């Protein structure tokens, strides 16, 4: 007996060509706008290149130079400080805020819209706004601290507070993460809470044993996305620090406390015309990001709970 074979409606080769034609906008875009620049920057990182002259092969010299470049280490330290302080605080505020937004309060849709509002404000505009809010002389933030008799720091012109100011500005858009957590909270089965309550579990135990594991896949995603965003931070420190009226013209903040990795990379590429060194820095950032992401993914086996396992 002959087995019945489905007959293709048209030759496989033709179908493949059609498929490729439909996918070509992405394929061409990916090759030209992503893959080629990535490969080119890899090559440039091994050269002395200024954009204007032909690249000159220098091998690993750009990478070796980083070892003795104090500003490179300062920018890396600052960026890791923003990341490892900013991301946990961002996650904590988001989860707490999502719980509040999950309550049955009057006008809840309005509150949800309001917390998301800062996320649609352009980063530059938000930076200018926060420069006034954090002003040591006239700022609203210090005014509030004064009411409570809390010491008022010089947020933008004191080296020990410059990095914190950047983190504060980054946290301004925490509403986006909060709404994602709100969606995650709504997906936690209510019967789990009811059962736990019957067993006498209090709010903290319910959070720790039910909510946290159930939203842990979302946390994993948020941690990785936020780490990538914090490692690439540019606009916030750039706007906060670059204001002649503040008496600082370094674009790196007091004591270089706002010198992020991306700002130093930009300076090398477009101000000092050291595009080879800037390309090498970009690759180092890629590997740092990759290493941290892989570490988190590896650790996820221990703290992320998937209920379909």
């Amino acid at each position, binding site marked *: 007996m002959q087995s019945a074979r489905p007959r293709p409606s048209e030759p496989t080769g033709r179908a493949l060509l059609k498929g490729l034609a439909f996918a070509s906008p992405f394929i061409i875009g990916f090759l030209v706008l992503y893959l080629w620049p990535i490969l080119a920057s890899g090559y440039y990182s091994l050269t002395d290149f200024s954009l204007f002259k032909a690249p000159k092969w220098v091998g690993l010299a750009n990478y070796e130079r980083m070892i003795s470049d104090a500003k490179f280490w300062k920018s890396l330290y600052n960026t890791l400080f923003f990341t490892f302080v900013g991301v946990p605080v961002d996650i904590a505020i988001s989860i707490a805020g999502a719980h509040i937004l999950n309550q049955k309060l009057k006008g809840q849709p309005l509150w949800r819209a309001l917390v998301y509002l800062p996320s649609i404000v352009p980063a530059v505009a938000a930076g200018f706004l926060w420069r006034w809010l954090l002003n040591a002389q006239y700022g609203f933030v210090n005014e509030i601290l004064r009411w409570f008799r809390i010491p008022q720091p010089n947020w933008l012109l004191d080296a020990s507070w410059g990095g914190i100011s950047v983190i504060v500005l980054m946290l301004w858009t925490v509403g986006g993460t909060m709404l994602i957590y709100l969606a995650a909270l709504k997906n936690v089965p209510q019967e789990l809470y009811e059962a736990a309550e019957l067993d006498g579990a209090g709010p903290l135990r319910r959070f720790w044993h039910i909510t946290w594991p159930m939203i842990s896949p979302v946390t994993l995603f948020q941690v990785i996305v936020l780490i990538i965003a914090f490692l690439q931070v540019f606009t916030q420190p750039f706007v906060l620090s670059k*204001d*002649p009226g503040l008496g600082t013209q370094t674009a790196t903040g007091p004591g270089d406390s706002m010198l992020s990795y991306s700002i130093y990379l930009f300076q090398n590429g477009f101000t000092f015309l050291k595009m080879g060194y800037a390309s090498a820095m970009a690759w180092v950032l890629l590997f740092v990001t990759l290493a941290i992401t892989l570490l988190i993914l590896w650790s996820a086996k221990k703290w992320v709970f998937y209920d379909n396992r």
Partner: protein
Amino acid sequence: MERKAQARAAHAAMSTALGAVMLLGGALGAQAQDKTEITFSYLWGGAEGAALEQIITDFNASQDKIVVKGVSSPDMTKQLASMSSAKGAFDVSDNFASNIASWANQGILLPLDEFGLDTSDFPESIMKQLVVDGTLYSVPIATHNFQLVYNKKLLDEAGVTPPTSMAELADAIKKLTKVDAEGNVTQLGLGLTDISAGLKTLGYAHGGDWNRDGKPTPTDPGFVEGVKFYFDNVVAPVTPAAYNKFVAGFGPYMSDQDSFKQGKIAMVFEGEWRAKFNTEAGMDWGVVQVPGKTPELNGSTWADVSTIFIPTNTGNKEAAAEFVKYLISPPAMEKFSHVLANLPGRLSLVDSATYDDIPNFKVWLDALKNPNTHGLPPALYMAEYNADLASAFDSVLQGAQTPEAALQAVADRTGSYSQ
């Protein structure tokens, strides 16, 4: 019938008018096509941009071969990107002298020697910034230097006369600095609206130089002494924390909240453009040359230059050079610098009566002829060096490092600069 005739007449009149407009447009188009069009992309905007547009209009009116299109584009990164391609977006542009050496070295500036530009009366302090390895790459459209500007009202109230020596300056700072009962600064005797410019000026006034013989010299004793003078006389007496808290309240430069305009600082090292702003702001102000550590050093300052250049990737180098020639001609330079209250780049214009209506302008004009006015020799490393100096100055004003330590840290980095 009558209506039909009227309609026919109107139709004929409209057709004739349309034809005339088309013919005129065609003729004008043909005339424009005969002219070489070049683009002048300038970093200025606002009043400066408007002044340049007027000069462009004057040039176009005087020309039957070239027409210049002015474009205000304040983005320097975009300016650089345009010069990296085979065919650029502009034929003439402007920048500052500190970038000339680096850009000439990259091969993106057209050498100007072959065009026979008249540079005979450019001050030496200016020319040395624009000639790289014996080749002229850029020419000045305006120049700048820094002098000691003071608030007359505040000095009178404190019984202080404008200082003429470093000792008098130190004494004036002391008398003009005010601190309230809680230790908060309410007025600074000497402020910095541009930290780098102010501290470099003080370095020159102490006989120092931060860039000697084409090499970065951040630990030059006179330069270190200048930075130390500011810290010891302005910052240390009120404490760095109180100083920085006060500075945090400074509003945007040359706005209504400007620190000098608001009377928050009594004296400041400022460029000549300040003359116009102070006057328009209705301030009672004066200016003296920068006091020196010794009488021979009186009037020490440094000259910065707003320069005009032609990129290598221009397709119209002859027309571009013709326009540059016009821009730096005495009448155009005088007009531009007068509108902006900037200094001219020609010694022959220093005594021009045109500038008489700008109050106190003569102090800055005279500095163009003063041998104590320093020009920076062109150097490839200037951008990096300036960024490192800015960080070092900030570190000193924060009280985080002594001037010696902060400037030594810069010296330690100079080895990696482009040479």
